[in-house]
């Protein structure tokens, strides 16, 4: 995919185009940005443009090299990610990479490597990468993708140019969803819910999502400390396994965020479809309590991520929410 096809990162692409034109691309980059915002696509586009011998500051998209990169079967591109069922990128993988990079490229002017997620390098593998990262053999191009560059070693960061990817705007997501053949209404809803990630937008199912919102808001409205059964029913029906629960908490967080905005007099909210209900909830609370609500949800999310018992965590959250709403 050439640069021209990348949506939503005009500024980043512009910088790359300029640096390719002036021949001043670095050999090491960190692409930082939320998952699914297009970091990998941009990385591929950059490699394609640098490999292609036709166009000036972009890939032509038709030469053999470009087609191979687009088809994901170019012999000079290495992908590095944690081995299946492993958490970290191991030092052995990096040694292999260093050996591969030392070889002459097959057809491209230089070798390239995309590492994702780079923050999965452990201490020893990250350290063993430092020398390569500073002076790669054959001027290889190294691109590290991460969601949070602060999680990389300072010595790694200092050797790379940091390129930040902003979350995709909802307009860009809507545009892409419509290109994929989605109807206007669902695209509008999903693009609001996707939190700037195309990947999330693709995973979310528009209709089911709207239904879920409704169920959730219904439960929220009935929560009451006087009838304790409402709390347990809610966590019984809404909870699920860890991933589903995290998703649920994300939705709750987006509600909380909207309530905070409404409560502080800002009418720009995400969940426009349930605005009246949210406004109803806000009218029962002051700003301080709304903030407390959001913090409770964040705290629950953290504990669920840290392997807390999902049901208990939800019970606890709903009790607190009921207390706040009362």
């Amino acid at each position, binding site marked *: 995919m050439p640069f021209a096809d990348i949506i939503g990162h005009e500024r980043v692409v*512009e910088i790359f185009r300029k*640096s390719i034109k002036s*021949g001043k691309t670095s050999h090491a980059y960190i692409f930082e940005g939320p998952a699914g915002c297009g970091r990998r696509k941009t990385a591929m586009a950059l490699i394609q443009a640098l490999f292609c011998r036709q166009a000036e500051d972009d890939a032509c998209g038709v030469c053999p090299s470009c087609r191979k990169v687009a088809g994901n079967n170019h012999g000079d591109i290495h992908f590095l990610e944690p081995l299946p069922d492993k958490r970290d990128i191991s030092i052995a993988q990096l040694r292999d990479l260093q050996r591969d990079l030392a070889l002459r490229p097959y057809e491209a002017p230089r070798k390239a490597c995309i590492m994702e997620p780079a923050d999965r390098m452990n201490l020893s593998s990250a350290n063993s990468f430092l020398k390569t990262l500073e002076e790669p053999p054959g001027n290889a191009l190294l691109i590290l993708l991460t969601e949070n560059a602060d999680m990389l070693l300072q010595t790694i960061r*200092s050797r790379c140019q940091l390129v930040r990817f902003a979350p995709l705007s909802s307009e860009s997501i809507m545009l892409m969803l419509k290109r994929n053949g989605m109807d206007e209404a669902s695209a509008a809803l999903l693009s609001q819910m996707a939190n700037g990630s195309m990947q999330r937008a693709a995973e979310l199912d528009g209709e089911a999502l709207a239904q879920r919102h409704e169920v959730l808001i219904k439960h929220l409205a009935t929560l009451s400390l006087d009838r304790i059964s409402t709390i347990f029913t809610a966590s019984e029906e809404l909870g699920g396994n860890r991933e589903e629960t995290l998703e649920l908490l994300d939705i709750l967080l987006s509600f*909380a965020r909207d309530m905070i905005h409404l*409560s*502080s007099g*800002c009418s720009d909210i995400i969940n426009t479809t349930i605005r009246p209900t949210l406004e109803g909830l806000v009218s029962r609370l002051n700003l301080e309590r709304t903030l407390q609500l959001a913090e409770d949800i964040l705290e629950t999310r953290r504990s669920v991520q840290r392997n807390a018992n999902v049901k208990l965590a939800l019970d606890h959250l709903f009790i607190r929410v009921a207390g706040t709403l009362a």
Partner: protein
Amino acid sequence: MSNGAHYEVLARKYRPQTFLELTGQEHVSRTLQNAIDSGRVAHAFLFTGARGVGKTSTARILAKTLNCERGVTHEPCNVCPLCIEITKGTSTDVFEIDGASNTGVDDIRELRDNIKYLPSHSRYKIFIIDEVHMLSTSAFNALLKTLEEPPDHVKFILATTEPHKLPVTILSRCQRFDFKRVAVTRIVGRLRQIAESEGITVNDSALALVARKGDGSMRDALTAFDQVLACCGSIVLDEDVATLLGAVDRQLLGKISGAIFNGDTQGVLAGVKMVDGVGYNMRQFCQELIEHFRNLLVINSVKKPEEILDVSAAELDELRQQAEGFSSLEIQRRLTLLIKADADMAQATFPRLILEIALLKLATLEPVVPVQELLEKIKVMEAGAVHTPALPWKAERTPPAVESRRHEPTHSSTPTAPAASPPSAGPRAQAPGSHSDWERFVGYVSEKNPVLGSILEHGSPLKQEPGSMEIGFPAGSYYLSSIQDSASIVEIQDLAQAFTGLKTVFRVTPITPEGGENPLSLVEKKKSEHEQRQDELKQEVASHPVINEALRVFGGTITEIREA
């Protein structure tokens, strides 16, 4: 298109090749040069310091000076084949080993086997072990003997960012050089040189921005500069630098902090929206905001902030205006909340929400009331109270002050409780005549002489006047017999004099426990207070509806009450 051409990033292209070019590490280069001149070159060096301050570069320069064809001089010639080989990394006698990739003991054994052979065509065989902190323990230990007494033709240079990870046995065998962070002005100077040799037009304020981005590291600054040059070409404008490096606009900072101080929640959220729209990193923004609040705090706390802060006069005026009307305490509280938010954001997936919550909290923070004011209010309330406590000491003392003295007797007078200055603050003429004075005196004695203090705790203060003191002890008790010897009495009199500032006569009287009219000793008092508290608790518990209900449901009894 130039994709085949080899572009070297600035940090590599302008890697210093002589000691003269090495920026900001004069203390290292001078020492090394003097050592070379006087022929006292050690056989093992350890270079430590933050990332990108010149450790590896210095190691290479040192290797070149030692092996240069022109003889061991204090600058390498950089033109002889040997120097060029080292620069290129192809020298057969200088081994640059990646300590983090070759961590095992086998790698070190290989190195040891290699060491005994003479260098092929240079003076020394030089081993540069970079990132040496990653070697395994056994690898370190395998290196010890060689590192201590290598053959004459071998030099070791170890380099690391984390010297604390090296065993002390390694540290003690090396000459250690700590590299400093490079000052902003020095980085600017170096950037200026580079800009000139690259033919780039750029003014000093832009360079300063780049240099500050480096945060003490030359390589970080050069990487940032590279990024700027890649985008801007040969004419670099200030605003381009600011956007490229994601430096947060000071106006935006001012706007948001203004909204925070005015309690304008809507303004705060609008500000965050703007920050996100421009594409700043939320965490970076939070850190800038912390810096901003720190500036405000400094302005509020010191007379001449311009000596501490690195801001222009116009900015200083603006900051002054903002800081006006807010106490340091108010700013500090907000700063604390921001720092917590920053820590939360490091591992969170919703940085924007966390920032929004934190900023709204800052905006809606209730104003604080100084402790002094609160204390005064309490005093007023106490004075107005009609209720006279049954026990005389209760009204006379301020409980927290006595409490704190009991636990930490050396704690000196705090501004929050000036009314009750502890005795250790200095001898002062006090009229000992009340229980709290007695208590203070016992506390003072305990601090000076714990044995005597603990005995006095069992005594009842029968009479206390300036210059004399009469203490009763139970007749026939151990305490009476231990206090009655003359040495103890003299000691207590000395202490009493130091405490009250008056010469004091100390008398001990045996008393009978039955005589109910004697004042309570401290130990008895404590006991009675404890019993009283227990009674209160019992009453409270007995009247608590939930506990009663629990007792009824389970058919239980209350056996013990503990305070959490």
